């Protein structure tokens, strides 16, 4: 930390919680989680390349109770980062900066990601065996 006697901006706890702030924080958090998750995808692909036994042990971990919970969390992280990322691209283009639009879009990221996550897992449990 730079040593300074200048005034600092107030830290997190001073602000009222708002949806725009939550989505911003969640975008970073889910990004970090997805970076870790990409290592799991890597494990899966490498396991397929090695052979049936390596795949079986990967599959056993993924289909275990803890594995399913993590996969469920990962699915939400993916869909949140996906929707909120598209929202960021839209805002990078200079659009959607009216305050009411901005707040609505942040709620869209939250609700949309939950809907997509539930839809994905509804498909998993109804469509194919896990």
């Amino acid at each position: 930390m730079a040593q300074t006697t200048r005034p600092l901006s107030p830290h997190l706890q001073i602000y009222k919680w708002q949806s725009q702030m939550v989505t911003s924080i969640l975008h970073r958090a889910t990004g970090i989680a997805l970076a870790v998750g990409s290592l799991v995808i890597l494990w899966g692909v490498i396991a397929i390349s090695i052979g049936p036994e390596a795949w079986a042990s990967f599959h056993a971990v993924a289909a275990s109770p803890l594995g399913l919970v993590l996969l469920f969390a990962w699915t939400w992280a993916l869909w949140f980062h996906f929707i909120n990322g598209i929202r960021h691209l839209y805002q990078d283009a200079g659009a959607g900066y009216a305050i009411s639009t901005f707040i609505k879009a942040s709620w869209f990221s939250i609700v949309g990601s939950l809907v997509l996550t539930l839809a994905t897992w509804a498909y998993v449990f109804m469509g194919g065996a896990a």
Partner: protein
Amino acid sequence: MSRDLRNPLQRARGLGSAKEGVGHWWNQRLTAIALVFLVLWFVVLVLGLLGHDYQAVRASIARPWNAVLMVAFIVAAFWHAVLGLQVVIEDYVHTRWVEVTSMVVIKLLAVAGVISGVFAVLRIALGS
């Protein structure tokens, strides 16, 4: 002792961005746009493979389009991840040597991840 009496801002003005000023930002967006499509493809692929046995999963990844898109997905995902983690580290790690060390570790890990992932896809696709 320099005889240049201009202040630092005056010296920097007009020199531009050394041509890489927005490189990080721009690559983050390009990989994001690619990943919008690649993530959708990946999720559809995985959901379609639910309940299939090893041979079917392997045969599916081995198909040319799937193998090519899988390589694209791995490269774009790791690239995007490194750019994102770099910003997080720059923002929150204030001890210089920790900052530099974690950047080096993350970049080397990502490169190792991409190489081993692409190699695995090639093994699957080319059947060895």
